[in-house]
């Protein structure tokens, strides 16, 4: 299918008085993506999603879903479902009636999927209770059910795991993975790098309304470089092997802590393991250190607001990624 991409944002901007909530955001979500929209509080994630759902009008730029403008008509949302912030329902109606209501507003067919959707989010037993008495997590689940009955091709989720218990979070992630495997395109916002790493193939990192990185998660990992932890039977020998090796840099060792170094690629690590074995330093542990991507994320989203330093970082980053931004 040579169709329009599920999401295309071009120069999207939303101004609230002095605050630019979303600042010239351009990005594309392609069919089949699980796209992570990652950023700290107030970064503009919810505001962007509201514009994609036609709930608020952009100050400038445009948001398109499957090539259609949700500002013009809800027809644009024919294949789209989701929610922003916590899903909200009528507290004086029970869960089932709330779903019937939104299903009626979708058209008749959605009604036939209510039972299945309730089952998926494990709310069947509580469907007869007033939503006013639901817990936060139950409302979140009902929100997912309300989105599923639309059988969308694009699912927009604003921090879907927020407020869920650990089991619920796991189920939610499993559900998103399953829907994606079934061919649904998903865009989800999140504060959590780990969540995005687990679920998403592409990511946009936003800060103060601006995109500071957009691209494949793999590329971002490559940008962060591979920091490797190494413990051996003889670290002195290992250090000698490490020094001056092609593809190995930044070797550090603090006291009894494991040796750390950066590797250019996985091939360099493979070579290294053979060299270590040959040298007689037996490998106890040779593992990537997870902290690096996290560090990069904080660096991208937390800078001092020093514009020059910021620009420099971004330049470095786009050099490294070949201008993926």
């Amino acid at each position, binding site marked *: 299918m040579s169709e329009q991409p599920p999401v295309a944002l071009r120069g999207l901007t939303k101004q609230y008085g002095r605050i630019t909530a979303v600042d010239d955001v351009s990005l594309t979500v392609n069919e089949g993506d699980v796209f992570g929209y990652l950023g700290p509080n107030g970064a503009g994630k919810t505001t962007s999603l509201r514009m994609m759902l036609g*709930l608020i*009008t952009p100050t400038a730029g445009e948001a398109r879903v499957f090539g259609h403008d949700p500002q013009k008509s*809800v*027809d644009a949302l024919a294949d789209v479902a989701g*929610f922003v912030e916590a899903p909200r329902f009528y507290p004086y*109606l029970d869960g089932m*009636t709330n779903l019937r*209501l939104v299903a009626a507003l*979708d058209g008749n067919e959605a009604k036939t999927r209510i039972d299945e959707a309730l089952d998926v989010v494990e709310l069947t037993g509580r469907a007869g209770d007033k939503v006013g008495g639901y817990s936060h997590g139950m409302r979140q689940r009902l929100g997912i059910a309300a989105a599923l009955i639309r059988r969308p091709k694009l699912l927009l989720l604003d921090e879907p795991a927020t407020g869920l218990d650990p089991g619920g979070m796991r189920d939610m992630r499993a559900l998103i993975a399953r829907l994606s495997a079934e061919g649904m395109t998903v865009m989800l916002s999140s504060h959590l790098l780990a969540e995005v790493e687990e679920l998403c193939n592409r990511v946009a990192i936003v800060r103060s309304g601006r995109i500071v990185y957009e691209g494949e998660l793999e590329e971002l990992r490559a940008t962060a470089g591979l920091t490797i932890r190494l413990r051996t039977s003889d670290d002195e020998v290992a250090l000698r092997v490490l020094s001056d090796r092609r593809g190995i840099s930044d070797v550090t060792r603090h006291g009894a802590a494991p040796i750390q170094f950066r590797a250019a690629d996985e091939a360099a690590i493979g070579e290294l393991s053979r060299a270590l074995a040959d040298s007689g330093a037996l490998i106890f542990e040779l593992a990537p250190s997870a902290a690096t991507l996290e560090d990069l994320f904080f660096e991208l989203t937390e800078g001092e607001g020093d514009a020059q330093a910021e620009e420099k970082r971004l330049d470095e980053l786009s050099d490294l990624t070949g201008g993926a931004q």
Partner: protein
Amino acid sequence: MSRPGTLTVYRWELRKLRAQKRTYLGLGAAVLVPIVFSVAVAIQPGEPADVPFGRYINDTGLAFPLVTLLFGSIWFYPLIAALVSGDIVANEDNNGTLKTILTRSVERSQVFFGKVMAAFSYSILAIILSGVVATIAGIIVSGFNPIPTLSGTLETPEQGLLLVAGSLAVYLMPILAISSFALLLSTVFRNSAAAVVGTLMFSLLLQLVVIIPGLDGLQPYLLSTQFNSWQGLLRTPADWDPIIRAAWVCAAYAIPSLAVALTVFLRRDVAGG
């Protein structure tokens, strides 16, 4: 697959109204007030002689709904109408549910008109219920007897019943205008208490405008005046002038209110909640 539209919204708005206490508060008051009035008349047979038909309440039950309409026009029926009409949009803001319904397959305009139809339905039901209860209670207390018209002629009870029904129908025009204004405030204020109180203030202020010297010429064009237009029916021959004027004056209040409300509703940002 049938496409959902205004009628779908309307049906579900009625369903929502049926689940809310506010609806029963309004309808309950609309029923209770004529009953209390009838009981009071039964116990203490004085008569409110200073209003048209007040003199006849001990002679015929058909005078009861008419006297109720007269007294109710000052604030009671406007309040009943505003109670739901002023809430029907603001309620969505309060519950944060606009984003829930506006991201389905109905246009904002369809949501708005579905709400207008539901608010109107409620207001019409409240007036008719109130009128029917007043008539029945009145007949129990004072009997199903002939009723004198404002021209001094006497109508048979059957003819009188028709005139009461006609009067209720004419009364609906200013009531729907009040509903429309409440809908406007509900949309603009996004707060139902403010919309209900605001509508009532508006209705009372209009009644006061004529006290200002030089403004008494406005009287025929005020909404409050239209609440009395049904009295044209109770003349022989019937005087249609006040009724025709009520039709266009009420439209002149209702249509711009709804037009502004619709514009605001179509353009507004749905944030928060």
